[in-house]
């Protein structure tokens, strides 16, 4: 069964998966995604909660969302400074 995730987290987990999959061709996608989620949870970027149906879902943490917002703001500022 697939891991349930919110949209933001799904995007970044997919990015990480694409980045590392060629180094781990013997592992299944599920094993790789599990490892990425483990790492995200340990550094405080992903968390597990119950959704509106009472099922366990993975969500991007408030800290991760705030870091993404900062990165997006920096990128916009850099673009504005571009000659």
């Amino acid at each position, binding site marked *: 069964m697939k891991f349930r995730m919110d949209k933001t987290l799904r995007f970044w987990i997919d990015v990480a998966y694409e980045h*590392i999959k060629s180094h781990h061709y013997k592992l299944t996608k599920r094993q790789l995604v*599990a490892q*990425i989620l483990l*790492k995200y949870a*340990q550094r405080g970027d992903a968390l*597990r909660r*119950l*959704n509106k149906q009472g099922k366990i879902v993975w969500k991007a943490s408030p800290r991760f969302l705030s870091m993404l917002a900062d990165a997006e703001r920096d990128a916009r500022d850099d673009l504005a400074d571009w000659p």
Partner: protein
Amino acid sequence: MTNLEGLPSYFWLTSSRLKPPVRDDVPYTTEALKQDLLRLQNAWEECQASRERDAIYGYLSAVFDLVAWWTAENRALDRAHSAQRLLHIIPFENEEPFAVVIRCTADREKVDKRTRSKWSRALRYALVQKTPSESLVQFIKRKGGINRCAERFRAHQRGRPSRLLSSE
């Protein structure tokens, strides 16, 4: 494949190396527990810094969400005990998970035993009665507030209707 150029490496994992053993599921590690407790401590700080009347609901919702997930995995009590061990907090006899988590994450000088017990009973009442689709704030307000939810839980435990239920 997503173009990673220009993205801070943090967001796409700094290392592609994985540590064995590789599993199909995601274990709940001590580090992840530590991060969950840290988030609740931050929620507590935020609610203390806020002037909004309902700020406490932000903290209580965070506590509720964590323990509800633990409960869904039938691990609430042992994870609450792990949290105590992690923070070197002396366990109390028969203390249930919500009270433990509150003691681990809220300022113990501001949240006394009575308040902790009241919040814990209100949250346990929500755990038993609330549907997953309704938010904790909506549920508690609909049921008359934190004090009344705590009272309702006590009546629920005793197996008889609360005197407050008569006003429904």
